């Protein structure tokens, strides 16, 4: 018996990223734009969806055909709330018997795809499990990542969870109707978001009163065309997009950059 050193040099999340790629191919084949919606627990993801989607699906004809994949540790409370919108809602529970996963990964989403009518929708919103760490690390095959951050959480959250705030292209600041009751500096929150991710679009909304929700609706309705245009642009430029695309250059300290930037 002797010991051999085996050079591996592999991103430990490659297995997940491979499955995420398979999901992305399925989404592309059905021409579905996929949004990974993330936040801390209780930030108001479901309420924001209720408000925003109500306006979209009740247009005649609907501006977008939207489906939702609801990730929760347990139960179907969120899916039940959204089902009144008469859109396809699929519940995905992460509970595997001892506590449940704190995030969705590519394989969990893949296992739920047979239940999602991809050919009947334009946009699939995947509501991730409430958590500010893990969901940012596990790609699911999405085109866009957005997060909801509420004014009851503290202005310093972007500095404490930069991984999550850097992963998202849109940060929706929710519950602004509560600002009058709180000692909360929303400008400081926005400055902190910009400090970790200056490219992020930031919106201030109240899913409860509806303030600012129209801006979010407009953003969502424009998303499929924008993603398609970006894909065409990337295609013309060899797929190299410095922040969001796969890195092609190498660096002394980074043999392979993770696909989370």
């Amino acid at each position, binding site marked *: *018996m*002797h*010991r*051999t*050193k*085996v*050079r*591996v*040099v*592999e*991103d*430990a*999340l*490659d*297995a*997940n990223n491979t499955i995420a790629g398979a999901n992305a191919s399925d989404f592309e084949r059905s021409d579905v734009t996929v949004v990974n919606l993330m936040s801390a627990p209780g930030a108001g993801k479901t309420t924001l969806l209720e408000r925003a989607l109500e306006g979209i699906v009740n247009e005649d004809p609907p501006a977008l055909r939207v489906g939702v994949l609801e990730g929760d540790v347990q139960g179907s409370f969120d899916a039940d709330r959204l089902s009144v919108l008469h859109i396809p809602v699929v519940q995905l529970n992460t509970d595997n018997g001892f506590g449940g*996963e*704190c*995030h969705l*990964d590519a394989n969990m989403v893949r296992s739920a795809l047979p239940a999602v009518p991809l050919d009947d929708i334009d946009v699939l919103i995947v509501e991730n499990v409430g*958590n500010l*760490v*893990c969901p940012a*690390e*596990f790609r699911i095959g999405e085109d866009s990542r957005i997060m909801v951050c509420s004014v009851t959480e503290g202005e310093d959250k*972007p*500095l404490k969870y*930069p*991984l999550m705030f*850097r992963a998202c292209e849109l940060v929706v600041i929710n519950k602004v109707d509560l600002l009058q009751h709180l000692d909360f500096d929303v400008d400081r929150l926005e400055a902190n978001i*910009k*400090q*970790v*991710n*200056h490219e992020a679009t930031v919106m201030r909304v109240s899913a409860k009163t509806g303030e600012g929700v129209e801006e979010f609706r407009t953003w969502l309705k424009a998303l499929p065309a924008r993603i398609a245009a970006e894909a065409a642009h990337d295609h013309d430029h060899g797929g190299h997009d*410095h*922040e969001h695309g796969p890195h092609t250059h190498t*660096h002394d*300290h*980074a*043999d*392979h*950059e*993770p696909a*989370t*930037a």
Partner: protein
Amino acid sequence: MHEFDLSSAIVQTVNKHAAGRKVTHITLRVGRLRQVVKDTLLFYLAIVGKDTPCEGATLEIIDVPAVLRCNTCKNEWEIEIPAFICGTCGPGAVEVATGEEFMVESIEVEDEEEAACTAPR
């Protein structure tokens, strides 16, 4: 809190490359921006690796500093706090040079000298 899942990802990657051989040592390369707590990772690796070829393997983590690069002035600097801004040029052309790694760098496995070629898996 994400260390449990990261441990599972490591064990999966390591066991794939070990191809059935017992693993005695694992070297990881972890960027500071990944916010991984080493002791927690070690704790979970012992649990997740149990009854797999990883069981009992020692672990070495190479820390990779968080280094940013500004593509305008070509400066590179290490950060201690999450401020992704160039002091000279602002945030416009800043990208992460290093610090996002989460790699299995190498593993050490036990080989049976003569049987090594005859028992592929």
